[in-house]
């Protein structure tokens, strides 16, 4: 099924942030500053829609001005992960160095809930309850009176995030405790929590170097859950797959393959709203499905992470922009491994041009013990690698650059 085809389907969805009306796309209208009292009213009503762009909250509702709200006066960190619910309010994360704050605007005014850890992915229920992830280690559920309950992640899990209310229960994405590090995605599944505890709803599994992640689940009125699945192989230099899936009961089915990296941001009048990275926005853009191509709402991020600012818990700085110097005297192209010297010698003869066979004894940081490889010393090893891969495509997967150590 094509994306365009999906876009024609009526998809009634309860929203992360209900996009109620369409604003002009980027460049069609200049942002206008909101007056602060109006901003607070609109945040508290939850009927407006806010996203984050340029470290500010912006509305996609205001037809007149595509209103950009100044950041709330009490916010000092990086704003992200905005959730709103008509009649309930708006909540977003004030991401600070150390513990984050969840900022809630509702009928009682502005409330700042300190998290003591990284807060992510707030979500509302229709009844005005809020749930979010704290430190990826637990969910926090806050009832409309402000009382909170903490729910630890299931046993055997390494992280929990992106919770949503579904009827009288909660669902959330749970990362399995598997792999070499908790920082990188390995295996996610959707779990449900009710009075009887946690139970898993989806049954994704991985092996070898495969990984499978679930992002931005949203719950439809019929109780089904739409989510984006991202999966790939971590050793491969290939773009991972992005797919839209739907979970009904405990049966998950792929709806369609997505054209690239995009995540769900909510829905409007039965149409899905997406966050995608675009050049037009130099970051996240909100797009809504139409009978034709996706239509831009404006720039902004709803439940995705900012790409234009560093997490305050990490050192703010600039990415390295200059190539590091190379020690050309030791650089070489290496072709291998081969289990026997004769096979390596045949390749060396084929390649010529100074190619020679080495073992771990000759090149201890380039070849594993027991194996043989062919090295072609070259002051411009990177360029030589490109040329050799073009000349010998059948050996391409065995070719690397290496630094020969005596």
């Amino acid at each position, binding site marked *: 099924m094509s994306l365009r085809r999906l876009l024609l389907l009526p998809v009634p969805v309860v929203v992360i942030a209900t996009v109620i009306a369409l604003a002009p796309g980027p460049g069609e209208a200049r942002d206008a500053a909101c007056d602060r009292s109006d901003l607070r009213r609109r945040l508290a009503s939850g009927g407006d829609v806010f996203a984050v762009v340029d470290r500010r909250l912006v509305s996609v509702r205001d037809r007149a001005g595509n209103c950009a709200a100044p950041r709330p006066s009490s916010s000092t960190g990086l704003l992200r992960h905005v959730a709103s619910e008509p009649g309930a309010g708006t909540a977003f994360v004030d991401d600070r160095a150390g513990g984050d704050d969840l900022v809630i605007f509702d009928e009682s005014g502005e409330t700042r809930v300190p998290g003591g850890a990284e807060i*992510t*992915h707030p979500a509302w229920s229709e009844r005005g309850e809020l749930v979010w*992830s704290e430190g*990826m280690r637990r969910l926090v559920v806050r009832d409309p009176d402000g009382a909170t309950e903490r729910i630890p992640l299931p046993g055997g899990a390494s*992280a929990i*995030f*992106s919770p949503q209310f579904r009827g009288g229960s909660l669902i959330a994405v749970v*990362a399995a405790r598997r792999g*070499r*590090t*908790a*920082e*990188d*995605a390995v295996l996610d599944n959707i779990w449900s929590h009710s009075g009887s505890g946690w139970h898993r709803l989806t049954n994704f599994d991985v092996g070898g170097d495969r*990984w499978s992640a679930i*992002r931005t689940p949203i719950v439809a009125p019929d109780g089904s859950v739409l989510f984006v699945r*991202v999966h*790939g192989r*971590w*050793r*491969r*230099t290939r*773009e*991972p797959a992005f797919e839209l899936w739907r979970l009904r009961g405990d049966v998950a089915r792929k709806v369609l393959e997505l054209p690239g*990296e995009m*995540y769900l941001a909510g829905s409007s009048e039965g149409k899905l709203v997406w*966050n995608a990275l675009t050049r037009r926005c130099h970051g996240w853009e909100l797009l809504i499905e139409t009978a034709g191509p996706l239509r831009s709402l404006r720039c902004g991020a709803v439940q*995705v*992470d900012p*790409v234009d600012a*560093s*997490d305050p818990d*990490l*050192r*703010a*700085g*600039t*990415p*390295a922009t*200059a*190539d*590091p*110097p*190379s*020690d050309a005297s*030791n*650089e070489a192209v290496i072709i291998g491994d081969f289990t026997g010297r004769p096979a390596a010698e045949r390749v060396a003869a084929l390649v010529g041009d100074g190619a020679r066979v080495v073992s771990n004894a000759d090149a*201890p*940081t*380039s070849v*594993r*013990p027991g194996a043989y490889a062919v090295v072609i010393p070259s002051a411009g*090893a*990177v360029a030589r*690698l490109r040329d050799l891969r073009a000349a010998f495509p059948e050996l391409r997967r065995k070719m*690397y*650059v*290496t*630094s020969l*150590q005596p």
Partner: protein
Amino acid sequence: MFGGRCNRHANDARTYMPSARGRNRGGYVYYHRKLLGKVGGDVMNVVRGGGKQKALDYGIWGYACRLKTGGSSWSVHSWGAAIDTNTLRNPFGQRHWDGRGSNGRRYGRFLPRSYVREDFYWGLNFNDPMHFQYVDGY
């Protein structure tokens, strides 16, 4: 500088390191070709020159095309611009560096110094002591 994530050059360089795949079980570490002089050259020069190959311990990783847990951000490993070393003793979330090598001997901060000297940023600053990256915008 490193191109797009998971690009075809992000694992073009390789270095054989002791204990990369397990204690005293060596293996190849793959990373971006632009870091060849840093990782395969300077860092390994210091390790081997000092006779401190045993400072390297289980396990060591470079390129990995993956999202970070729970978010829409990508691991710096997706650009081949980071190395995780001695991961078993220095897991994500730990707030200190355990400098014991594969022989159990204490090497202190020998390895972190070797990477930091080459302008890598140490993940200990955000409770990821195994992690050394050549970008700091993260």
